């Protein structure tokens, strides 16, 4: 045992090593990605590990490993669980032999997500147990023990940390990793694994019969606890429990929910000892609904009467205000302060030299009146460049484009999607668009990596999660196999060719695919690819602002003229768009910032 300062996801990964886990899959998604990234970097691993192409694929691989008796972990972000929901729902019926833990990381406040859905609702929906840690230590301990819980009830366990658990840090007591010794073997049992109606009706009954013992066990294991200290009680779950604990006065009872399903009998017994109850939780009022069901005439406060917000994340400061409005004086009084409001925002932007920027630039010039469906990735930042009209979920750039085209919009429909997102769930949409004769252009932004979530490899990268060699998928062959007859590949740093290719695509019928290919500029830098830098000749610069409008973070205004800073990675696209020809490759190399 030792104490280390760990990121939440590091602690979770370490808990899996202590279980130990035998089989790991996942698809990257903030805030979950570091768990697999850490586990794949462990030297001399005794477990199998892969980055899968999407969450459904990841889940099914892990499920079958658990059917073979292995302890399996499958990681994703909350919206990934939508993709994996199909096998998830029925895996509750088939159950598992080895422990299966499905980590679905929720993102209150949508720091890095398209919505604020709550994975605990999937637990209620599927009738699977769900563990909901309130901090890093608990996340570590819960995931370490979750495999045994899964085996005890032969059910997959949903493990649901949130952003402020995954991406927070703290002193964490960890144990020793355990060496794997299990070997997977599938034992045929069609009544368990072939869910034809005759089997599944019986399996459904078995799932329901497991619930009472499961609820009792989650209380006995200490996940759901109550400390009765007064006539008023606060019930809290997840990270909100930590915020409450920080400031709750000693004369108020504290009921902590760390696992679902909640034992109603136990909950009713705790709630009934109070005159009024406040429920504090993020996202969906899962705990509040349970409390309201057992509270009888005891007044309950929470989201449903407007005391706790439905949206966003909580914090110690916001919980202090909630306690006050409920009539509890919090142990801390925070000064009322407000930020300075007149500062220019500093949102994340595409890197200097990012290959997406010239594609968006060219696209907007060739298809001035176009409609631009896009997708989930760094390139969603193309919104700032006026090049993203829609984003809904992974893979939907393709289907939104074909839908708009079939709806009758006569403008050019030009969709953008990254390589990883295309492989994740864009392929069926492309197949469908070709099959049904859509008129659209799909630009695949192929930087050979899953960049946004931290540069995880994918089938375009030529390496596996552990760095082993793997064949690089041919996006050209894949698109042609879907039936696309017009497929062109272009270097996005070559603006003339890029524009010419897009113009050529414009004139073709049906579905056209342009593959714009350059390595992610961060990966190129890590691989020591040096292109030199560019500079502005102040004597030639006319201060027209064209390069400034390109939106590259390496281009600043100094004395009204353009100036290229040390951030320049040498893509050279600005030199191609400068009408005065004032940008040229730098001749000297010393720093000039």
């Amino acid at each position, binding site marked *: 045992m030792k104490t280390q300062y760990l990121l939440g996801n590091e602690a979770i990964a370490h808990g899996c090593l202590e279980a130990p886990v035998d089989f790991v899959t996942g698809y990257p998604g903030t805030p979950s990605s570091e768990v697999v990234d850490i586990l794949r970097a462990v030297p001399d691993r005794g477990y199998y590990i892969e980055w899968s192409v999407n969450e459904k694929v990841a889940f099914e691989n892990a499920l079958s490993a658990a059917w073979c008796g292995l302890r399996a972990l499958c990681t994703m972000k909350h919206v990934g669980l939508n993709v994996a929901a199909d096998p998830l729902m029925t895996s509750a019926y088939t159950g598992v032999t080895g422990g299966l833990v499905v980590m679905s990381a929720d993102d209150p406040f949508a720091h890095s997500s398209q919505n604020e859905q709550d994975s605990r609702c999937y637990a209620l929906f599927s009738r699977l147990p769900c563990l909901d840690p309130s901090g890093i230590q608990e996340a570590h301990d819960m995931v370490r023990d979750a495999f045994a819980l899964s085996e005890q009830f032969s059910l997959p366990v949903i493990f649901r940390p949130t952003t402020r658990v995954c991406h927070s840090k703290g002193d964490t007591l960890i144990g020793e990793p355990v060496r794997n010794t299990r070997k997977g073997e599938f034992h045929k049992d069609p009544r368990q694994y072939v869910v034809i109606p005759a089997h599944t009706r019986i399996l459904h009954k078995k799932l329901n019969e497991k619930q009472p013992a499961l609820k009792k066990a989650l209380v006995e294991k200490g996940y759901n606890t109550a400390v009765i200290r007064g006539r008023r009680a606060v019930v809290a779950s997840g990270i909100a429990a930590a*915020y409450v604990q920080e400031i709750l006065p000693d004369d108020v009872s504290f009921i902590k929910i760390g696992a679902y399903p909640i034992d109603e009998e136990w909950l009713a017994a705790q709630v009934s000892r109070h005159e009024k109850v406040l429920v504090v939780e993020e996202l969906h009022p899962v705990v509040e609904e349970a409390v309201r069901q057992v509270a009888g005439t005891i007044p309950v406060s929470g989201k449903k009467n407007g005391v706790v917000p439905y949206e966003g994340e909580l914090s110690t400061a916001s919980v202090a205000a909630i306690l006050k409005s409920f009539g509890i004086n919090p142990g801390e009084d925070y000064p009322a302060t407000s930020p300075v409001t007149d500062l220019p925002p*500093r949102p994340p932007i595409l890197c200097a030299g990012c290959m997406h920027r010239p594609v968006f630039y060219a696209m907007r010039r060739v298809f001035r009146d176009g409609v631009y469906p896009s997708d989930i990735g760094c390139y969603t930042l193309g919104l700032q460049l006026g090049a993203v009209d829609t984003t809904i979920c992974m893979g939907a750039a393709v289907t939104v484009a074909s839908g708009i085209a079939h709806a009758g919009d006569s403008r050019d429909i030009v969709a953008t999607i990254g390589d990883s997102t295309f492989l994740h769930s864009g392929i069926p949409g492309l197949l469908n668009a070709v099959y049904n004769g859509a008129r659209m252009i799909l630009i695949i932004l192929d930087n050979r990596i899953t960049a946004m979530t931290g540069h995880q490899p994918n089938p375009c990268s030529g390496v596996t999660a552990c760095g082993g060699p793997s064949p690089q998928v041919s996006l050209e062959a894949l698109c042609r196999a879907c039936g696309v007859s017009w497929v062109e590949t272009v270097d996005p740093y070559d603006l003339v060719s890029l524009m010419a290719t897009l113009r050529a695509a414009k004139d073709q019928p049906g579905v056209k695919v342009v593959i714009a290919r350059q390595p992610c500029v961060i990966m190129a830098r890590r691989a020591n690819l040096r292109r030199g830098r560019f500079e502005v000749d102040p004597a030639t610069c006319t201060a027209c602002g064209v390069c400034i409008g390109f*939106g590259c*973070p390496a281009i600043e205004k100094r004395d009204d003229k353009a100036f290229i800073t040390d951030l320049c990675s040498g893509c050279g696209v600005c030199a191609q768009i400068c009408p005065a020809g004032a940008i040229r490759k730098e001749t000297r190399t010393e720093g000039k*910032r």
Partner: protein
Amino acid sequence: MSTSFDVLMVGIGGQGIILASNILGEACLAEGRSVKGAETHGMAQRGGSVEGHIRIDGKFGPLIPPGSARVIIAFDMLEALRYAHFLAPGGMIVSNSHFVIPTSVYMQGVPVPDEKSLRERLSAWPLCLVDADGIAAEAGSFLSQNVVMIGAASWFLPLKPASLLGAIERLVPQKTVEINRKAFELGRAAGEKCRTERQGA
């Protein structure tokens, strides 16, 4: 009850806030103290405004309430102003005297902030300005700015300089230990001036 000493680090994605937060966390462990923190990960790091919360002796939530940070360490002067409302009464802002103009300024045509007005506005709070760019260059690497800032702030933190230096030596890449040790000492010397001025005031 919360009794933590809260330190907020702010800057721009890519400036090394995560390493800086690890240094403070490791130093806490070396002194046998509990610590909680939170930081920005993911796409927000792509040149965006980022924050790192470190709660020395923290036991519960990782987020620092506004108005509660005893020290703010800013890697960029504009970001120092953006987060100044987090400072507790009697706290101290230790900020890099340089700043990067956000690209949004040019794209949206909003007024360009200038150094003089930033300095003036920041002087409403107890402020220690450090030429982190220049000192890091003197230490031997532009990349050691985060360690320069920790050195400067070390006068205002409840952690022993030896604990911080030990954490730096363990956490920075092996071949940069010398540069970072120097960056810490030079930063510490720069911070001492602020401490003396403050005590004089």
